[in-house]
């Protein structure tokens, strides 16, 4: 009932505002306005905070999510800065490659995964949201350095017919920190940045 009312409000509002009588024109405008709204939203999210990749106060945060049992792969995502408070708390993880995610210029603070998103031809677009409270990916970045968030596996949770879909994530041993860092080193921007040397040094440490 509530959804129907909402649709009614939207419809009447559109009709009133654009004052068009022909139904197809209204539909076309609605579609156009929806696309503009979505673009604005996506731009707002994607813009997020930015920093110089070679800023010495940067930290590299990385991890892995196995989405084999999920409806889609994870094409991208966001990490949330929970402290210190920020007007722009969502850091874009950029394009994800085969479950690997990383962010190379986070300032000192506290972070946790906020969401992943992905799409599949038959299954459409999906978003995977992590809770603000009780989030197992919570991590404190105390001083500039390399921080491994861990490797996780997506697991579907059974829910009732009328309940929204849910999932959990379980920590896994693979891929290891060293395997993921080796893969991050292949990234074009990382290769050219101050991170290349720091990652090499960390890999040496891990081999000991």
């Amino acid at each position, binding site marked *: 009932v509530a959804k129907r009312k*909402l649709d009614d409000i939207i419809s009447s509002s559109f009709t009133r505002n654009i004052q068009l009588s022909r139904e197809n024109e209204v539909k076309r405008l609605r579609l156009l306005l929806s696309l503009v709204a979505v673009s604005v939203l996506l731009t707002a999210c994607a813009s997020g905070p930015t920093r110089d990749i070679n800023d010495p106060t940067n930290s590299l945060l990385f991890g892995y999510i196995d989405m084999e049992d999920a409806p889609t792969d994870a094409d991208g995502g966001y990490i949330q800065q*929970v402290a210190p408070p920020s007007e722009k708390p969502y850091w874009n993880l950029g394009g994800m490659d085969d479950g690997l995610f990383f962010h190379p210029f986070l300032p000192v603070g506290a972070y946790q995964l906020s969401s992943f998103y992905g799409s599949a031809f038959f299954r459409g677009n*999906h*978003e995977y949201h992590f809770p603000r409270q009780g989030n197992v990916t919570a991590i404190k970045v105390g001083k500039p350095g390399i921080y491994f968030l861990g490797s996780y596996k997506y697991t579907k949770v059974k829910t009732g017919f009328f309940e*929204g879909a849910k999932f*959990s994530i379980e920590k896994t041993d693979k891929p290891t920190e060293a395997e993921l860092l080796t893969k991050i080193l292949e990234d074009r921007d990382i290769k050219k940045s101050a991170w290349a040397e720091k990652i090499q040094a960390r890999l040496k440490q891990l081999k000991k």
Partner: protein
Amino acid sequence: MLTLNHALRQSASVLAVLAIVFVAGCAGTPRTPVDSLKEVGNNQVILVGRVTVVPPVHASEQSFSVFNQAWANRMVLLTSDEKRPLTAEPVLADYDGRIDADLGKTFFVAVDPKPIYVRAGVLLLNDHQGERLYFPAGFQLSVRPGDKAVYIGTIEYQRDDFMNIKRVRIGDDFDKASKEFKEKFGGKVALRKALVTPQQPRNAQE
């Protein structure tokens, strides 16, 4: 194992509609906030208290449309007449008889003269996804027949950066609350101090 929301496009729409329904006032009736004796019913008691979160929830943590701004910085205390811990995610009916407490401000609500059990605190983070934070409670509020007004104290939730509740402290700000009480209701009504008993930190949904 931690369960996380997986918002499909459809379920996100459902959640959004539910959130709108919730904030539009369909989520049960709250206990009546009162500002003068005229608003207090016969035999009703004025319950006085305060809820704070330390460190406070930052404004950027909450996001509401212009119509739902009243939910910013407001904690909902879910209550019942009997000891009934919250064992699952609350449904709309659980919000009936709630206390809407603006964080950091003294609340004054009219209640019936019988004990009240606070099941949990809920803080809505936004109205597009209906994302919420939960705060442990399990408090018994000692409201007795014959009471005119009862002061329950300041429920202070101490949290970490990740919104995990580390400690619940009950503060005694009786003098300040009493002054505010007199300004609203005059000096003829006695405000009885009956602080709630703090509980050990635990997950509000356990």
